């Protein structure tokens, strides 16, 4: 917890400066699809690649925010947030698959190609309704939320905390990955979903559709940031911080810790699901490897590198680590895993408050 709204005058120049930087950053991001329209040789032209990769990073930043809410504030180190991201992505993917309609390779009016291939006669019941955008969006939030609710309820109620909770969340995403790899689950087995055609009537291959998705993600990011800002600034946010630092003491003050953690965890999972839903139409594919534990743990690194317990830090971390990854995997792919592993070591040993800690300097108490 570094900069929260406080009664009294501790708001500093840093805060105002931060706000200006943030607004500036959002404006720069918002300009990217526009600058992409400039002629190729224009000095300010932004390449297609950069726009699409930035669109992905924005989704990652939302995921990082959601993880930060759970870990940085409520102290729930989830090693399975990638699962919520993937569940949101799959819900969106199901909608996109339904929208393909008869344009699939097999030309079946309703069934997606993989179902025709596997000999399905009719749509499984859990695919019903996904042709409606509103229903699919609801599921994007509800499915991850429900999974988080069940898992969280089971764990928080029996006071499973710390590394135990972390491993259980990791086991959850691992189990989901194994399950989604199966063909008979009805989610396309290890190929997952791809070959999407359109969304909300827009063919996905057009520049306009890509720009629209970019802006939708950006709006979602700003919205999620503001939501988290508001939450962490309320008394509820301070209860979360208190739970993070001394869970049992909070109980003796009369707070139902289970309920508070559950609320934060479910909200966080929904945000992750939203991020996944925005991600899938941009990359054009979703498959079970999205559930792999490695993805979740990478998201943890983004937050740790940026500075957990600070919302800006989570976003900053997502952008910087992914920027580094994109750059390294094209120039020196062998090095990337060393660097990623090294980041874990560096951040835990030398930079416990992340990049934000560097900017803020010493003095302000961060999370222990």
């Amino acid at each position, binding site marked *: *917890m570094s900069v929260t709204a*406080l*009664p*009294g005058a*501790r708001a500093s120049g840093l805060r105002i400066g931060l706000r200006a930087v943030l607004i500036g950053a959002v404006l720069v991001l918002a300009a990217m699809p526009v600058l992409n329209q400039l002629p190729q040789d224009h000095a300010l032209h932004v390449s297609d690649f950069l726009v699409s990769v930035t669109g992905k990073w924005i989704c990652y930043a939302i995921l990082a925010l959601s993880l930060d809410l759970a870990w940085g504030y409520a102290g729930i180190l989830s090693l399975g947030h990638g699962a919520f991201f993937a569940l949101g992505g799959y819900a969106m993917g199901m909608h996109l698959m339904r929208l393909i309609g008869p344009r699939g390779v097999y030309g079946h009016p309703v069934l997606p190609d993989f179902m025709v291939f596997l000999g399905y006669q009719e749509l499984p019941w859990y695919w019903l309704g996904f042709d409606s955008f509103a229903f699919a969006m609801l599921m994007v939030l509800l499915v991850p939320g429900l999974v988080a609710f069940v898992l969280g309820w089971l764990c928080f109620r029996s006071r499973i905390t710390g590394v135990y909770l972390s491993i259980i969340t990791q086991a959850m995403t691992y189990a989901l990955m194994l399950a989604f790899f199966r063909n008979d689950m009805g989610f396309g087995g290890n190929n997952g979903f791809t070959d999407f055609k359109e969304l909300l009537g827009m063919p996905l291959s057009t520049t306009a559709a890509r720009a629209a998705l970019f802006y939708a993600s950006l709006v979602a990011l700003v919205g999620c940031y503001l939501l988290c800002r508001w*939450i962490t600034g*309320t*008394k*509820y946010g*301070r*209860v979360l*911080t*208190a739970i*993070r*630092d*001394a869970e*049992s*003491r*909070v*109980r*003796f*003050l*009369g*707070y*139902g*810790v289970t*309920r*508070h953690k559950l*609320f*934060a965890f479910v909200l966080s999972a929904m945000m992750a699901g939203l991020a996944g839903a925005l991600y899938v139409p941009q990359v054009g594919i979703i498959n079970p490897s999205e559930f792999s534990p490695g993805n979740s743990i990478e998201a943890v690194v983004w937050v740790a590198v940026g500075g957990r317990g600070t919302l800006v830090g989570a976003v900053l971390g997502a952008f910087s680590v992914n920027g580094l990854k994109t750059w390294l995997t094209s120039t020196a792919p062998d090095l990337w895993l060393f660097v990623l592993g090294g980041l874990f070591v560096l951040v835990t040993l030398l930079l416990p408050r992340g990049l934000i800690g560097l900017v803020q300097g010493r003095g302000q*108490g961060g*999370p*222990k």
Partner: protein
Amino acid sequence: MKGRRLYLDGVSVVFDGFRALNNLALIVEPGELRAVIGPNGAGKTTMMDVITGKTRPTEGVVSFGDADLTRLDEAAIANLGIGRKFQKPTVFDALTVFENLELALKAPRGPLPCLRWALTGEAKSRIGATLREIGLEERAQDPAAILSHGQRQWLEIGMLLMQDPDLLLVDEPVAGMTDAETEHTARLLAGIAGRRSVVVVEHDLDFVRALNCRVTVLAEGSLLSEGSIDHVQKDERVIEVYLGR
């Protein structure tokens, strides 16, 4: 105010065969101030653990008014109006002194009320009053992490007051305090009693004498003696196990 009495009877707590509490009985009447003394390891803290739901008794009855405390969890017991100050002061380091008190302030405890919570003038003035009482007015905006041991003790007492409980369980409140502060604490607790029940555990006998109340002596998990401080200090058994060491 509605009077609820704290009632413990036949309470035993067994840790892997070791009896931390052994057939303990204790009744604290509404509005009563009670001091509990006893040698190290007598089971005083364990008794508070049992009342506040931290430890489940192996057997026995623990009730507050007509609520069976053995069936409730810590939060529910706290919401019944039982507040506790821990032997080892635990405050929330990342929050300021003000925020610590705000968190303890009696108010609806669910996530949604907390999200909607707005600091009213009344709440602010109550927190201000408590800050004055515990002498931390100047430190209101400092993070609790940088307080001294004594100040943390005071902050915990302040949090206990903010909860506005009907029963206060205070475990060694004056450890690490100066003589003047000890006196102040004794006055504070004596002042609270009458309106609420207070149970104080303390090793400092001058402090207990200053409380001027009924004293319960525990030893090896059982009730050894009960009465005025002069009475228990004359009790042969007490002298043997505790004072006469």
